[in-house]
């Protein structure tokens, strides 16, 4: 699992990001839907999509 450049975390809080193999953010958006649509228009490079939570967001503890 590719890691994100730690210096970028605060800049992308509360956003969905697509992280390249070098740890850099190649695309980002507040909306997962918009980010994945953006990626579909780009050349197919390997990325990892995830969301950077807001700094005060509560911890998720499961589904029931």
């Amino acid at each position: 699992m590719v890691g994100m450049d730690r210096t970028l975390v605060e800049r992308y809080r509360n956003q969905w990001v697509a992280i390249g193999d070098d740890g850099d953010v190649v695309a980002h958006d507040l909306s997962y839907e918009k980010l994945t649509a953006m990626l579909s228009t780009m050349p197919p490079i390997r990325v990892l999509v995830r969301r950077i939570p807001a700094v005060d967001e509560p911890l998720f503890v499961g589904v029931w």
Partner: protein
Amino acid sequence: MTEGWWRYDHLDLDEARLPDGSPVRRPVVTIAVPGSAVNHVAVVDSGSPVSVADAHFFALLGLDIESDQPVFEVSVGVGGAYSKVPVFEVELELRAPLAQSPETVTWRLHLGARRGWRLPFTVLFGQRGWFDRFPTTIDATATTVELFPDR
């Protein structure tokens, strides 16, 4: 056919740190829509009876959750909010950790489409959809997934 096991180190998803300053590290695996270059983070949760994902993820799978017929619906609570989610049969691809191998494992599962998703990952794998397909060991630092031919 991919066999053996893959070991995924737990991942810090940049959530708020615990009061003692330690980071929260989640048990994760990497998945994708089959054939896609876009990988997604999935958290593995043995306490969850079902598997669910961000409702928008289903568009990438070619499903319209408003008009396509779900296999069934189930009421779940995720992150403190309850809702009824439609469950679809989908096909996903498991990717090797750290892209160590170009090999992949494809499997079919029932996956619930959760609207209003705000979690820092795309999919939550539970007993149905994950543990009934992949024998999985989770310890303090890593998730080890046994790979067998589809069963």
